[in-house]
Structures are given as C-alpha cells and as structure tokens.
C-alpha cells in the first residue's frame, strides 16, 4: 500500500480488462456501503419519526410480546415485533436512532471543540500551558473508560444535558492529544517559523497556519469518536443511568428485553443489531478517513 503512494506510475493507466473493471466496480460499491448505511440511519433519525407514530406510553396490552412480523390489533404489522407493554419495536428502533445520532453528534461537537482548543494551544505554546493540560489529561485517563460517565450520570438528576456532559468529560481527550501532538510538530515547520519572525500574531498563526492541517485528522477522529459516544450512551441507558425513562434509547430497550429473554428474544436482540450495525458502519468510515488523512500528512 505504501509503495503505491510512493512510486508514481509515469504512464497513463491502461484501460482495464472487462473482468478487472467489473471487480473494481464491485469493490467500489462494497466500499461505499458503510457510508450509505450510515446515511440511512441519519435519514431515519431525522425524518423517521415524522412517518412512524410511536409513543412510549402508548401500546395495546393485547399486543404484548408479539414476534417479528405479527399483525397488531389495529391492523398494522409489527415488523420487529412488540415489547412487554405491546409497544412496536420498529418504532423504538427508529426513535432510538434519533436519540443515538443526536447525542453522538452533540458529544462529538463539544468534545472536538474543547479538545481542539486545548490541544492546539497546549501543543503550540508549550511550557506551563502544556504542562497543565497534560496533567489534567493524565488525571482523566486514570478513570477507567466509562467510569467517570457512570458516576456523573448517576449522581445528578437524569437529563439530556447531564448525559451529554458525562460523555464529553472524557471524550475530548482524544481530540486534545491528537491536536497537541500535531501542533507540536507543526510549530517547528518553516512556514510557522517564518510567520513568527514576520511578527504575525500568535492567534492568527494558530488559525491560519496550524489549524488547517489539524482539521482533516480531527474529522477522521470525530467519526471514530462518534461511534464511541453512541456505544457509551447506550451503555449508560442500559445501566439505567441515561436519559429519563420517557425517552427512547436502544440501551434502555435492550435492558428491558433482558427479563423476557427466554420468551421474547427479539426485544433485546434487534436494537442491539441496529446499534452494532451503526457502529460498524461508522467505524469503517472512520478507518477509511484516518487512512486517507494519514497518507496525505
């Protein structure tokens, strides 16, 4: 892979043989699949609730625990079955997608902004600023994974804001470390030195000569962290520490289905598949972006 990037082929590429061309086309379609699926989730999250009527308090008790594909008492079909209160699981999956995408986006936006600001300034200025930032990051990294989020989400009253804060408290670290290390090496580059010598203000150097180079890798990282934030939100909801119970979240549905595992496996299984598929597609996209920006750097 590296040789492909290094050795430039001087001759224009010869037209591919039909069989190879077909294979390339197939490969291209397969490679685009994760992005398409991810896009479908986003569309479902945005406009799905407009078309699908779902209420967390509604649900016919006659329709309890129906397997996927059953006909409901009101004549509709429950594509993914129903839960213990007779609520449609398909609706829960669509509304859950909205929760996941919304919280994931918010967390990544906040984390990226905070991380980028702290990391760039710390890496560029160095000295005491860098020391303080590094020590704060060290302390936060000592809390294992989701632990800090569990404690914060657990002791405060349940709300959207608390969930977003709890997840962002550790999520920004990745962005800070990336932009810090990049700013540290960019600081030594000739164009930054020239700008410094010419008396360009520090703030302007960061904005014009450093940030543009960090933007690409940060975008790639944001994709990966988005997947992480969605997983973490679902974990909190699963533990009963996420959003208030009136809202719909995959983690909550999976937790609720655990009690009915022996009789109605689909309640836990289907939202989990929806969650895993989304994370896989986002992960694939993130990996490709990371590789793309890694090669250019």
């Amino acid at each position, binding site marked *: 892979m590296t040789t492909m990037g290094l050795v430039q082929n001087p001759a224009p590429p010869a037209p591919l043989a039909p069989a190879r061309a077909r294979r390339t086309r197939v490969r291209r379609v397969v490679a685009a699949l994760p992005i398409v699926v991810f896009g479908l989730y986003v569309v479902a999250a945005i406009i799905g609730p407009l078309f699908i009527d779902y209420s967390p308090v509604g649900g016919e008790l006659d329709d309890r625990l129906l397997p996927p594909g059953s006909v409901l008492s009101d004549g509709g079909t429950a594509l993914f079955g129903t839960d213990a209160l007779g609520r449609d699981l398909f609706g829960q999956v669509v509304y859950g997608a909205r929760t996941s995408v919304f919280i994931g986006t918010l967390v990544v936006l906040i984390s990226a902004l905070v991380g980028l600001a702290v990391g760039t300034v710390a890496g560029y200025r160095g000295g005491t600023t860098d020391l303080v930032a590094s020590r704060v990051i060290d302390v936060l990294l000592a809390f294992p994974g989701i632990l800090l989020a569990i*404690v914060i989400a657990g002791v*405060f009253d349940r709300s959207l804001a608390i969930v977003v804060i709890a997840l962002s408290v550790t999520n920004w670290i990745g962005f800070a470390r990336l932009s810090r290390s990049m700013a540290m090496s960019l600081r030594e580059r000739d164009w930054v030195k020239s700008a410094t010598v010419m008396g360009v203000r520090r703030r302007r150097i960061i904005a014009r000569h450093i940030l543009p180079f960090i933007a690409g890798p940060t975008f790639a990282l944001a994709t990966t962290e988005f997947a992480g934030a969605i997983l973490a939100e679902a974990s909190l909801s699963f533990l009963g520490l996420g959003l208030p119970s009136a809202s719909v979240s995959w983690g909550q549905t999976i937790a609720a289905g655990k009690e009915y595992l022996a009789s109605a496996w689909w309640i836990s299984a289907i939202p989990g598949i929806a969650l895993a598929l989304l994370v896989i597609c986002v992960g*694939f996209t993130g990996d490709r972006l990371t590789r793309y920006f890694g090669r250019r750097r």
Partner: protein
Amino acid sequence: MLPQLIRRLGLMIFTVWGAVSLTFVILRLAPGDQATVQLGPDATAADVSALREELGLNRPMLVQYLDYLGSALTGDFGESYRFRDSATTVILDRFPATVLLAGTATVVALTIGLLLGILAGRAPGKLADRAISGITLVMQAIPSFWSGIMLILLMALTLRLLPSAGSGDLQHLVLPAVTLAIPFTALVARITRSSVAEVTAEPYIMTARSKGLPERLVLSRHALRNSVIPVVAIVSLHIGTLMGGAVIVEQVFAWEGVGSLLVGAVGNRDYAIVQGTTVLLAIVVVTMNLLADVLNARLDPRIRAGVAS
C-alpha cells in the same frame, strides 16, 4: 531507567491525587448531600441536620476536603450506609472477583488476539488478513452488554450449557470473561497485525528468509520479539477500557465484583462506596500502566538506554 522510574512514580501519585480530588468535587456538586439522600424524603429537617452534624457535612468545604484526603490516604472512605460497614471492607471484599474476571479476560484476549494478529499480519492483504480484519472490526463494534445478553440467550437459555448469572465456581466465570474478552481480543489482534506487518517488511526479516530459515522460526525468533513491543505499549493504554468494560459486564451477569457494587452504589447514592471504588479503579489503571512501562523497558533495550522515548 531508575530516574525515569522515580519520575513516573511521582506522576502516578499526582494522578491518583487528582482522581481522588475530582471524585470529591463531583460528589459535592451533585444535588442532595449524603444526609438528605440517606434519610429519604420523609425525614424531618431536624433529623437531616443531626445527621449532617454527625457526618461532618456542615463544616467548611476545605476542612471536609482535607479530612477526606487524610482519610483516603489511610484507606478510609467512611461508612457505607447501605452495608452498615466500612466502605473499604465492602470494596476489598468484592475486589478479588473483579481481578479474577478482568485477569481471565486479559489472558484470553492476549492469547487469541496475538494468534489472530500474527496470522493476519504475516501476509498483509491476503485472505486471512482480510477475514480477520473484518471479524475484529465487528468484535469491536458490538456493545459488550448486548453480546453478553446474546451469549446468555444462546449458551444458557437455548443450549443450557452454562449458568446465566451469578458468581462462584468456574462455570459462572466463562460467559462474563468471554464477553469482556471479545472487544479486547479484537484490539490486541488489530495492533499485533499492524505491528507484525510492519516488522515483516524490515530487511532483517528478508535476510532471515533468504538464508533459508523456516517461516516458523522467522516469525517466532525475529518478527515476534520486535512486534510485541508496541502491542504491550498500546494494550496497556487500554487497561482502563477493560476495567470500564468489567463494570458493565459485571452488571449484565450479576457478577459480584466492584463494578456491580459501584453501579448499585451510584443508584443508591452510597457516596462512600462510590468514592472508594472510583479511587481503587483509578489506582489499578495507573499501576498497570506503570507495570507495562517497566515490562516494555525489559523487552526493549532501546528504552532502557533511553534512546527511544
């Protein structure tokens, strides 16, 4: 190495102090102090203020903080109101179960992950590599609370091979350990893969191959030794992720470790337990990171000599 080690020890102590302090701040910011939470909504104002007095909650914040810090230094986190016992005793009682779970998962993940990583990395781009890369991506994407439930559905409810929850004998350990090991195995495999792929492209591997050394020896004697170094370094950075995963897995399988203890304590606002568990887990993470550094220095002479940072 020694001055480096002393510096690392100092940093470690600082980090633990930071974790202890941050926990204190979060719990003091939370609505409702231990007295109101403990007595419930029906308590009279007099009762609450009496308990506040008893717990020392009406002293100035700084005094409370210093007192807490001093007690934490001696391993005392106060009394758990749910267990009516010293929080430290309750936590240390549960700790071996978590160590057993996380330790087993680590051994499983390292064994299978290294194997998969070597298989994939020795021939990058080949079928084995692509298959393993795909599988590990899926393994990392599956939330562990869900894979745990699905394993219960398959192994406990459908096949009736293993118990679905609880702790005790070896049978109870299998499902939680496997669940916890799944994402960690994938992580080890992915790092090993890229490390082995990088090392096998080195000239000395070509030398070893062209002098006619069997592939098995090329891998075990030349490639593996050097590829393990970044694996140790990166895996040690994810020990926190493993411990965090243990918290959730314990909850799924009702495994009686510190993780399920913490989640219960957070729900009940049993602050003594929350503080103690958080600090204990932070110490575990920081200590394991230090041990990994020492191990890495043992493996790589360049680090010992201070050549590579």
